[in-house]
């Protein structure tokens, strides 16, 4: 047990920190989302620079262009990115989900065709899993994937897809036989987002921005080379995608929370330094942050030892989302009536935006209800509640 960086990690961290100080574009510091085209343009450039500096695919095997490093380097990377308030690589879906799934299930030609361009940010990926009728219950997807001729034809609707409005490719889970059991008959495809019949509609959210999208597929032809895994074997491929979502996800969350707690402390110092109730709540958030941080380190140790992400990923997501909701609400309470004002660059508009946005945290990427089910069933071994 040693909670300090080892010499190599320390050097990696120092280099990265200096690199970030020199390289994060001014327009992306204090990053708040990819909602404007200007931000996306900066983001593409930024992602290329990250890749050139060797920070894309840190844990990917070297044979696929990655750095082949142990997970702890990815953790340091995420911590330092958060510390610098710099955005991640624009291709997080490709790097964190599509890429590892292709590495695990893809044919050699698929690896050649896709992996390098994920790293370089030449191609941006999105995920087509959720549907309007199938949120938490992924196995109930109804998008049709019909084998036709030498390929497939896709019809259906996906929703809650980040990056779809700028994506080149989509990992899509659909149903190729309607008569089968829920987990069977699912097929996993790579869809070219430029294909005829693909329509993306931004989904405006509570904050007024659109971070997510609906994707409509109307008679979209997908060649058979784009099949990942077997026809009808999509569930197993999808599980790989989802397990990779959780790998070092907690570090990104704790990093974001660290920034938020630091800003909260600043706000409280400025506006409510003597309020005992505020002081108590700020201290609680600080403690929760440390708890999350060190839980991540424990998860990392286990991941490095076993190669399998533990249940701490669900724990981190669950607690981060609730912490972020509490913390942003505390901030608007400190600000008071002024937080009603939505425009401007100051603290009121910033925290109001964060507070409204935080309501999605307990819904996106696994609702809190589903995460508690997962913990109850998979960790504690309780009977299924469904």
């Amino acid at each position, binding site marked *: 047990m040693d909670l300090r960086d080892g010499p190599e990690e320390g050097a990696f961290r120092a280099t990265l920190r200096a690199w970030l100080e020199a390289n994060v574009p001014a327009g992306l510091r204090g990053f708040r989302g990819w909602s404007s085209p200007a931000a996306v343009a900066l983001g593409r450039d930024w992602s290329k620079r990250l890749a050139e500096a060797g920070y894309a695919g840190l844990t990917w095997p070297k044979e696929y262009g990655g750095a082949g490093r142990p997970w702890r380097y990815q953790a340091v990377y995420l911590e330092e990115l958060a510390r610098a308030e710099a955005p991640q690589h624009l291709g997080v879906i490709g790097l964190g989900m599509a890429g590892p799934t292709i590495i695990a299930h893809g044919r050699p030609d698929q690896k050649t065709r896709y992996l390098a361009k994920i790293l370089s940010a030449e191609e941006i990926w999105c995920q087509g899993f*959720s549907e309007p009728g*199938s*949120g*938490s*219950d992924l196995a*109930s997807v109804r998008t049709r994937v019909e084998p036709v001729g030498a390929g497939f034809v896709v019809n259906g609707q996906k*929703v*809650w897809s980040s990056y779809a409005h700028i994506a080149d490719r989509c990992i899509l889970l659909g149903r190729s036989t309607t008569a089968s059991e829920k987990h069977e008959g699912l097929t996993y495809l790579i869809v070219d987002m430029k294909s005829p019949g693909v329509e993306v509609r931004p*989904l*405006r*959210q*509570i904050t*007024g921005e659109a971070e*997510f999208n609906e994707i409509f597929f109307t008679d979209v032809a997908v060649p058979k080379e784009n099949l990942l895994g077997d026809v009808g074997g999509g569930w197993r491929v999808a599980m790989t995608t989802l397990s990779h979502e959780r790998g070092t996800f907690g570090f990104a969350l704790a990093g974001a929370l660290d920034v938020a707690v630091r800003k909260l402390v600043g706000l409280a110092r400025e506006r409510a330094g003597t309020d005992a*109730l505020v002081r108590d709540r700020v201290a609680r958030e600080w403690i929760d942050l440390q708890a999350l941080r060190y839980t991540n380190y424990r998860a990392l140790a286990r991941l490095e030892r076993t190669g399998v992400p533990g249940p701490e990923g669900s724990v981190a997501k669950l607690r981060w989302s609730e912490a972020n909701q509490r913390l942003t609400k505390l901030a*608007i*309470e400190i600000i*008071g*009536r*002024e*937080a*009603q*004002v*939505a*425009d401007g660059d100051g603290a009121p508009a910033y925290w*109001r935006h964060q507070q*409204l946005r935080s*309501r*999605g945290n*307990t*819904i*996106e990427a696994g*609702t*809190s*209800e589903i995460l*508690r*089910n997962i913990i109850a069933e998979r960790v504690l071994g309780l009977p299924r*509640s*469904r």
Partner: protein
Amino acid sequence: MDFSFSPEQDQLRAQARSFLEKSYPLARLAEIATSEDGWDRASWAELARLGWTGASIPEAQGGAGLSFVEEAIVFEELGRALYAGPFFSTVALALPALACAPDLLAKVASGAFTATLASGTAVQALGAGDRWRLRGETDLVADAGSVDAFVVQARGPDGIGLYLAERHGTRPQVCVLDTVDVSRRLGRVTFADDDARLLAAPPAAAKIIAATRRRALTALALEAVGVASQALALGVEHAKSREQFGRPIGAYQAVSHKLADTYVETELARSLAYWAAWCIAEDDGQAELAAVAAKAYAAEAAVAACERAIQVHGGMGFTWDHPLHRYYKRALWIESFDRSGAAHRADIAQVLLGG
């Protein structure tokens, strides 16, 4: 000891609910909110015709001569419908001061006159007798862009008084702010030697200001109850119809118990709000404490009700197109009014514990 509404009061509620459901249904919220004014001006005459703007105004001035209990019913139902228009401003915030000017009461009752309260201590009243001018700025004034006049708390030669500044053309200058709850906008009002009329001079003004605050807190508690009720209804409806894993999601306790908690808190908030309303109608000695308790509790209950409803709705509850976010933003508006819940509880602790 009888904590129930009379048949006439029940009828008023039924009428209000059916009118609002028909004329201002959920489906119209977005359209009204994005209109330039942010409200349907034509609705005001309807509210007046139904007797709502003049509910507590004496019959001699064209009102219905009823009590705050009847107004309470209207506030709750307007909250449930998320009615956008200066009813809270005119009836809760301005009316107590307008009672000093009986000529205006008839205009309020008939729907010809709306007003709001511009409070704060940064406005000066200059002049004497019948001729007064106001100078200074007040911020975050409710419905500033919609009303015909401002009841202004201003510092005159003898202290804080209440003045009436009517709006003529571009005077006083009003800047409507870009705020979160677009169904009840806030504005900055700047007085540059604008003409005003003295409504109440210092010793009397303080009493009116205190009474206004009690009314406003209670009215918002009632509105919060309406907001929470609607959020609960939307959540329940969704939980009954949305299926996941082969069952309606309302069959899962993670959903149903959340909604049960909302029901419980909404009922408790309702009890406090009705208690406060009765205290105000009867000028009871506990009115202040009741109003503060009701506002603190009901605002938090409404915020929690909306948050739970959003969660129960999943991603859909987080979208702009669903009406829930509008209710949520109103609940947050209410919560931020006057003082925080913690500050209100500190007031109560002061009474209980001294110090």
